[in-house]
């Protein structure tokens, strides 16, 4: 059986940053397994700019951002297997904490790889039509926004000429601009919620710049066309998301793009038996970004869906460091009990979900999302009854991930840690 110390599942932004950091932490035995024929993951098709402002202090396009990490992987001589599909991850049957990664590719066939640690970095996928319950026919011309993005940017193929977009996630907004620049007519973007899930910058620069209307609180109520999309009808919805009769608006078009959310891709994680959060749909992790299975770490969109790749890179680097520490036997025993972080009062979830104060580094980044749009709100972190962080935010919205950094010494002052709570407060 082949062996490696650390197996990294996925060669996108998360997998690359994790592998680089594990190598820098002194771990030489690393193998990156990537399904596609090239590294870089989704960044390859994200040809727009705006990546890397936090990491490199300049605005890069997706492929440029990816290349900076690919170059480092090459310089550090980290081996990568491309065109490689991981079929399963399972615990070794000899009672050790090793994992058996089963993968498949053209050169080696079916391979079983024994790894001491695994970093999950499989990313996410788009919610497809089948998961949306849109009424109407099922003709050609209905794509997820990301599929259309790959067709236009990588394959040089325009999927349609006259377009309606459902969902105002960032990929949908980016594709509204991209299709317009390539000569298509984008007639409207319909969004079920009363606010957009996309970044403000994208609404202005992808829709407003081109006069594309954003229809908030609207959804698709009919798709016409037997062979090919002929028309799409949208309608306004009430506060319970039910279409309001009489508000229908019909657009003759040949294409409907769907940008209705991203789902972490965790089939391998579930197969391994790791605990999955019902909120993030990613594995639950502790302060080391380790899942409920010791030695299995997670980062990037497979853990929870991010808005900015810079934060993926940061998170993945932490996972890589901790995986290296694990295989080098430095993870240490668990000195204090695990504490489950309580997310309440507008905070939908936190990552990590579990903190062991004894294993915390000097600072810990807590990422979370809020459940609605809040103005002039305070983000607070409590240890027991003591408030250790209180920060004013002019605005917090579901479309933008929130980040707070908590310090280990503020824990020390609180005495024995019994609870950790993250909540929004009005004052």
């Amino acid at each position, binding site marked *: 059986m082949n062996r490696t110390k650390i197996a990294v599942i996925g060669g996108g932004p998360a997998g690359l940053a994790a592998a680089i950091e594990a190598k820098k932490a002194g771990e030489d035995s690393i193998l990156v397994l990537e399904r596609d024929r090239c590294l870089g993951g989704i960044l*390859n098709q994200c*040809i*727009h*700019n705006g990546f890397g402002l936090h990491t490199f202090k300049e*605005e*890069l*396009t*997706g*492929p*440029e951002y990816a*290349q900076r990490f690919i170059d480092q992987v090459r310089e550090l001589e980290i081996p990568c297997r491309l065109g490689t599909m991981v079929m399963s991850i399972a615990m070794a049957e000899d009672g050790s904490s090793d994992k058996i990664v089963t993968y498949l590719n053209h050169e080696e066939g079916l391979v079983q790889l024994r790894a001491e640690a695994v970093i999950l970095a499989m990313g996410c996928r788009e919610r497809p039509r089948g998961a949306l319950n849109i009424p109407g026919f099922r003709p050609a011309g209905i794509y997820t926004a990301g599929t259309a993005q790959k067709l*236009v*940017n*990588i*394959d*040089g193929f325009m999927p349609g000429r006259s377009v309606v977009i459902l969902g105002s996630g960032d990929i949908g907004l980016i594709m509204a601009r991209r299709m317009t*620049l*390539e000569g298509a007519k984008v007639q409207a973007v319909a969004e079920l919620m009363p606010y957009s899930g996309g*970044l*403000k*910058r994208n*609404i*202005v*620069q992808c829709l*407003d*710049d081109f006069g594309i209307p954003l229809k908030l609180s609207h959804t698709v109520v009919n798709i016409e066309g037997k062979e090919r999309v002929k028309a799409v009808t949208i309608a306004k919805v009430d506060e319970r998301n039910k279409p309001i009769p009489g508000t229908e608006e019909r657009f003759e078009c040949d294409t409907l793009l769907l940008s209705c959310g991203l789902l972490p891709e965790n089939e391998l994680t579930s197969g391994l038996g790791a605990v999955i959060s019902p909120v993030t749909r990613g594995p639950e992790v502790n302060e080391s970004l380790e899942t409920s299975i010791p030695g299995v770490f997670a980062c990037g969109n497979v853990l929870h869906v991010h808005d900015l790749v810079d934060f993926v890179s940061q998170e993945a680097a932490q996972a890589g460091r901790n995986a290296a520490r694990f295989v080098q036997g430095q993870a240490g025993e668990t000195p204090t009990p695990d504490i489950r972080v309580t997310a309440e009062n507008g905070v939908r979830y936190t990552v990590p979900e579990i903190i062991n104060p004894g294993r915390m580094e000097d600072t810990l980044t807590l990422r979370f999302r809020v459940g609605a749009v809040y*103005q002039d709100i305070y983000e607070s972190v409590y240890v027991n009854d003591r408030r250790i962080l209180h920060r004013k935010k*002019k*605005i*917090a*919205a579901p*479309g*933008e991930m929130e980040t707070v950094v908590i310090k280990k010494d503020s824990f020390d002052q609180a005495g024995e840690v019994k609870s950790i709570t993250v909540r929004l407060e009005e004052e």
Partner: protein
Amino acid sequence: MEKRELTCIGCPMGCQITVTLEDGEVKSVEGNTCLKGDKYARAEVTNPVRVVTSSVPAVGGEIGQVSVKTAGDIPKGCIFDVMEALRAVSVQAPVRIGDVVLADVCGTGVDVIATKNVELKAR
């Protein structure tokens, strides 16, 4: 007197800003709640600029398209001219990030450069 309505992109607030112009000169900026908004609004009404990104065919490449961008800001009004100019462009693989794909696009003084490495297709 001309009034222009803008949505600020400085943060998720997205303040609705009204700029009043007289003879192309900014007389007032209202609706913003911070300095970032004031700065954005003034730049946006006097000299709006964008970076344009697209992709062009990469002849003989392992993938068919190479992504490109304007190496710097171009006037917002030139976006469709740049796209039109790019329609006539293709490059020969291999291509490296930073290679000039189209120099001085539309007389803006800005080059269009490759943003992706595309290797020659293996035989």
